[in-house]
C-alpha cells in the first residue's frame, strides 16, 4: 500500500508538471541515447574487425613488401642493380631472426585472364608456395589445392576465385576447364570459397593462384613482391614485424620496407569508428552530467514549490528519511523514464549513424542495461542534494510556507 501510493503520487506529480519533467529528462535521455549508440557501434566495429581478421587468415602472420600496397607487384632493384627481397634472402629469414617460423614468398601480378571467348582484364594472379593455403587459412569450395607433386612437376594448373568460376563457367563445373593467362593454358583444379572484399578494397574472389614456378614462367619477375611471414608465438607478432622491417631496411639502405599485419590493418581501417566512439563517449558523459545537474536544479525548484506539502507530511509523521526517500523515488523515476526514452532514441541514432557512416552496429542486452544503469545512477547521485535539502526543512517554518536555505 505504502509503495504503490508513493509511486502513484510521484507519477501524478510528474504528470501534472509535465513540462518540468520533460526538461529534467532531456539531458539524461540524450546521454543514454548516445551511450547506447557507443555500445552498439562499438560492438559492431569489434565484430567487423574480428570478421576481417577471420577472413584475411591467421593472426600469427605479417606481410612485407618493397612497394606500398596498391602499387603494382614485381620486385625492386637497388641502386647497384641488385634485386631486393630475393628468394635467398627471404628464405634465410628464419635463420636471421629467431621467432620466425615460416616465410611464404608470394609473387603478384595483374593480368587479363581468358576462357573460351570471355576475357576479364586486370585480374590478380599470385604465384604461391605449397604452404600458402594453410598460412592464409583458405578454404576450397571445390577441387583441391596444389599438391607437392603438382608443384614439383611444374604442370600448368590454377586455383581460381569463385567470382571467376561463376563468370567464365556459369552453371558448369569449372574443374578441369582451361583458362588462359599470358598466352599459357592453365587447367583449373580448385575453386576457392568466397572471401568477399579484402582489406585493400579488392575483390578477393577475383583471383588466380598458380604454383610459384608457373608464375615465374608466366611473368619472369625480378624478385618477390610480397612475403608473408608467420611467427611461432602470435604474441610477438608486432615485435617481430618491426624487427623484420628494420632488418631489411638495414640490408637495403635508402629503401623503405612496408609491413602489415591483419590486426593492425583491420583496426586502422576502423579509424572512423574509433574517432566517432571517442567523441560519442564525451558527448554521452557530458550529456549525462548536464542532464543530472539540470534535474537536480529543477528538483530543488519543485521542492521550493512544495514546502508546505513537506511541512504537512512531517506534521503527519513523516521522518526525514521518508521525505528524502520520496525525493529520491522522484528523481529515480524521472531518470528511468529518461533512460527508457533514451534507449529508444539510441536505437534510432545508432541506425542513422550506421547507415550514414557505413558502420556496423550490434544491439544486445548490454546497451539497454548500461543505459538504464547510468540513468538510475545519475538520478540517484544528483537526487541526493535535493533530497537532503527537503529532509532538513524545519516543519514549523515549512508549514508557514517560508522558504529556507
Amino acid at each position, binding site marked *: *500500500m*505504502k509503495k504503490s*501510493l*508513493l509511486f502513484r*503520487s510521484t507519477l*501524478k*506529480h510528474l504528470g*501534472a508538471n509535465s513540462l518540468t519533467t520533460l526538461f529534467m529528462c532531456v539531458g539524461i535521455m540524450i546521454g543514454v541515447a548516445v551511450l547506447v549508440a557507443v555500445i552498439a557501434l562499438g560492438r559492431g566495429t569489434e565484430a567487423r574487425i574480428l570478421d576481417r581478421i577471420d577472413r584475411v587468415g591467421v593472426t600469427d602472420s605479417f606481410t612485407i613488401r618493397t612497394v606500398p600496397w596498391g602499387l603494382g607487384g614485381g620486385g625492386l632493384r637497388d641502386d647497384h642493380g641488385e634485386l631486393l627481397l630475393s628468394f635467398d634472402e627471404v628464405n634465410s629469414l628464419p635463420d636471421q631472426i629467431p621467432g620466425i617460423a615460416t616465410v611464404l614468398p608470394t609473387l603478384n601480378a595483374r593480368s587479363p585472364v581468358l576462357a573460351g571467348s570471355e576475357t576479364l582484364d586486370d585480374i590478380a594472379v599470385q604465384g604461391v608456395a605449397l604452404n600458402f593455403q594453410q598460412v592464409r587459412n583458405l578454404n576450397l569450395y571445390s577441387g583441391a589445392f596444389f599438391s607437392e607433386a603438382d608443384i614439383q612437376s611444374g604442370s600448368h594448373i590454377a586455383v581460381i576465385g569463385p567470382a571467376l568460376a561463376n563468370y567464365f563457367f556459369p552453371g558448369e563445373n569449372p574443374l578441369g576447364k582451361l583458362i588462359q593467362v599470358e598466352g599459357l593454358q592453365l587447367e583449373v583444379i580448385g575453386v576457392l570459397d568466397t572471401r568477399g572484399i579484402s582489406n585493400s578494397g579488392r575483390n578477393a574472389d577475383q583471383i588466380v593462384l598458380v604454383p610459384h614456378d608457373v608464375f615465374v614462367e608466366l611473368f619472369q619477375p625480378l624478385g618477390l613482391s610480397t612475403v608473408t611471414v608467420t611467427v611461432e608465438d602470435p604474441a610477438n607478432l608486432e615485435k617481430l614485424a618491426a624487427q623484420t622491417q628494420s632488418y631489411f631496411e638495414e640490408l637495403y639502405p635508402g629503401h623503405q620496407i612496408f609491413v602489415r599485419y591483419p590486426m593492425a590493418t583491420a583496426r586502422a581501417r576502423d579509424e572512423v569508428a574509433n574517432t566517432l566512439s571517442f567523441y560519442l563517449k564525451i558527448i554521452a558523459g557530458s550529456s549525462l552530467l548536464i542532464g543530472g545537474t539540470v534535474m537536480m536544479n529543477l528538483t530543488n525548484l519543485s521542492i521550493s514549490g512544495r514546502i*508546505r*506539502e513537506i511541512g*504537512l*507530511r*512531517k*506534521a*503527519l*509523521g*513523516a*521522518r*526525514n528519511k*521518508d521525505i528524502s526517500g520520496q525525493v529520491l523515488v522522484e528523481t529515480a523515476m524521472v531518470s528511468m523514464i529518461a533512460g527508457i526514452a533514451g534507449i529508444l532514441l539510441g536505437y534510432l541514432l545508432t541506425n542513422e549513424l550506421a547507415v550514414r557512416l557505413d558502420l556496423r552496429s550490434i544491439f544486445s542486452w548490454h546497451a539497454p542495461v548500461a543505459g538504464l544503469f547510468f540513468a538510475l545512477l545519475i538520478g540517484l547521485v544528483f537526487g541526493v542534494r535535493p533530497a537532503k535539502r527537503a529532509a532538513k526543512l524545519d*516543519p*514549523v517554518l515549512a*508549514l508557514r510556507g517560508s522558504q529556507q536555505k
Partner: protein
Amino acid sequence: MLYLNQVEKVYSNGSNRIEALQEISLKISPHTFLAIQGKSGSGKTTLLNILGCLDRPGSGAYQIDGEDTSLKSDNGLAALRNKKFGFVFQSFNLMPRFNALENVIIPFLYSSNPPGRPKEAAQQMLEKVGLGDRTKHLPGELSGGQQQRVAIARALVNNPDVILADEPTGALDNQTSQEILDILAELNSEGKTVIIVTHEKDIAKQCPYVLTLSDGRAIDLKQPGNGNLSNGEVAVL
C-alpha cells in the same frame, strides 16, 4: 497528560529578540477541550507546535504521559506526531491532486503499524465527519467546510489521543465554523483531548477552558461555558 514546565521559546534574528513563549507551565489532562486565544503574535501557534512535537521548547521541559520529549530523537517525535497527535490547520492543507480518500490515507504512509485495509479505515473516517459520499472528490471540488472535514478525518485516522487545531474555523463562515466546532466537541465527548487556537469570541466562549496568551505569557485561564462538555482539566501552574 501533557505537562509543560517553564517552557520558553525565543527567536533572535540579529539584534532582535522575540520572546514567542515565556515561562509557560501548564498541565492538560486527557479528555480536555481547551481553546487558546490571544492577539496576533502572542505565541498561540508556537505553543501549539510545541504541544504537537513539531517544535522543541527553547528551554524548559515538556512531558507527554510522563515521558520527557527532550530525550526523544527526531524520528521519535515524528512517530509521536503520527500516532499521538492529529493536526488540523486553518488553511486545510490538503494535497490538491489527491482525492479525499487519498488525503485521509497519508498518515498511514508514516505509521509503524497501518491497518490491513487502509482504504476502508479512511472511508470510515470520512463517513464519521459526514463525507461518506465525497470520497473521490478532489479538494478543489469541495467547499471550505467539507475540506476542513477531510482534514479532520485525516487527523483522526491514526486514532490519536490529542487533536491540535490551529484556527480551524478561521477560513470559514459562521455557520460552517459552528459545524466544525460541533464535530470537534463530539470528538472530545468520545474521549479525545482537543486543543484549538481561535480568534473568535463566539467559538471561545463555547469551550470548557480558554487560555489567553499575551506576549508569550499565559495570562489567564477561564472556564466560560459548558464545563460538563469536558471531563478533563487544565491548570496553569
